[in-house]
């Protein structure tokens, strides 16, 4: 098995699963019905994408299924970005987290769509269509909250500020990222400036201030997570841990 490629696919799958799980926590709690439905739809997209990545990873590792990756790995085996396990807190934080990630996600999928790995490019082409909607949703809300009331402005700015240090991890390559850059030209360093330009333009349009920080938060890709991921897995894996091998 090609360990680097496998790790890379797991990274992508974990990002989708953990963010999808977080967003799904809004189900039934959205600020208005339309936004509740929107968030639930977006969560479903992410979980669906995670399944495609895990199914692909399972074809490389004999005896594994998609469920093994989701339900039977521990915190340190998860490779998702630290940003995505951060709590929903309020609608502003949820939007800020998605906004930063969606713009990065779209950029990486655009590269993967035309990369030389056929399996990954097929999944990316499917996911790209969905993520373009996510981008529109989260950036529209950044603008609406930023350019809204004094309170919404203050709260989305606070969320953007607080989550910004985690965005450095998007562009801090893991071994698997380095492999993908060398073998398939999926080069994170090229995406960093594109991401900054896109994000800064939207933040400015929203009458908000682009945060800066000298202290990046890194480690998710290497399995060094915050305690928050443990709580997610406790809920996500409860059935399979309590009743091993149970099926629907």
């Amino acid at each position, binding site marked *: 098995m090609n360990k680097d490629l496998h790790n890379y696919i797991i990274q992508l799958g974990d990002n989708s699963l953990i963010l999808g799980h977080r967003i799904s926590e809004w189900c039934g709690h959205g600020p208005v019905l*339309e*936004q509740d*439905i*929107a968030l639930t*739809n*977006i969560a*479903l*997209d*992410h*979980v*669906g*994408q995670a*399944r*495609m990545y895990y199914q692909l990873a399972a074809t490389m590792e004999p005896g594994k299924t998609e469920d093994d990756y989701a339900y039977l790995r521990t915190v340190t085996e998860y490779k998702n970005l630290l940003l995505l396990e951060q709590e929903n807190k309020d609608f502003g934080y949820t939007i800020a987290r998605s906004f930063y990630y969606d713009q990065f996600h779209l950029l990486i999928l655009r590269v993967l769509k035309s990369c030389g790995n056929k399996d990954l490019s*097929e*999944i990316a*082409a*499917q*996911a790209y*269509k*969905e993520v*373009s*909607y996510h*981008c*529109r*949703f989260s950036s529209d809300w950044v603008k609406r909250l930023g350019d809204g009331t004094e309170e919404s402005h203050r709260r989305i700015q606070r969320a953007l500020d607080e989550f910004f240090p985690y965005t450095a991890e998007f562009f801090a390559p893991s071994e698997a990222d380095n492999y993908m850059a060398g073998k398939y030209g999926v080069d994170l360093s090229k995406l960093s400036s594109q991401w900054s330009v896109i994000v800064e333009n939207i933040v400015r349009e929203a009458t908000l201030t682009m945060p800066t920080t000298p202290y990046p938060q890194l480690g998710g890709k290497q399995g060094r997570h915050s305690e928050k991921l443990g709580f997610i897995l406790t809920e996500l894996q409860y059935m399979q841990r309590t009743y091993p091998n149970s099926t629907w």
Partner: protein
Amino acid sequence: MVNQSSIREQLSTEIQDIYNVLDTVLDPEVPVLTVVDLGIIRNVRKENGTIQVDICPTYSGCPALDVIAIDIKFALDQACFTNSKVNYILDQPWTTNWISEDGKRKLKEYGIAPPQGSPDKGQLGEMDKTIICPICDSKNTEMISAFGSTACKSLYRCKDCLEPFDYFKCH
């Protein structure tokens, strides 16, 4: 999509019979469309005595896909094609271009505005399009939410007949 009936005539009688069975399998989320109308049947063939039906997902997280696979298998069993297998494929992402003209007509009759224009222009232009009300044909409509009751639909409102309606997103 290319004229389906002319393509079908070129198939063997047995495969044509299978397509006739597939014509009876409905999408559980939009139960006026058959799986053939929806354009998710990518290939039907016979290999070593087993009928292989390839289907593709509309959206990654579409919860209906597993149900559709079960429904197809069941319909084929009922029609005495007992040795069949349904495969999921991704080799080209599904697009609303593959919904048949008949399917688009059925959508409108059902009260869902069919996908309008081309998805190739990019999804972001999608939300700025003028969507025609499926009930009164007015162009005076507005989007309520890009995300509707299922992943494939957006929510709109007609400002003339005042009815809310679903729009099947170009995808």
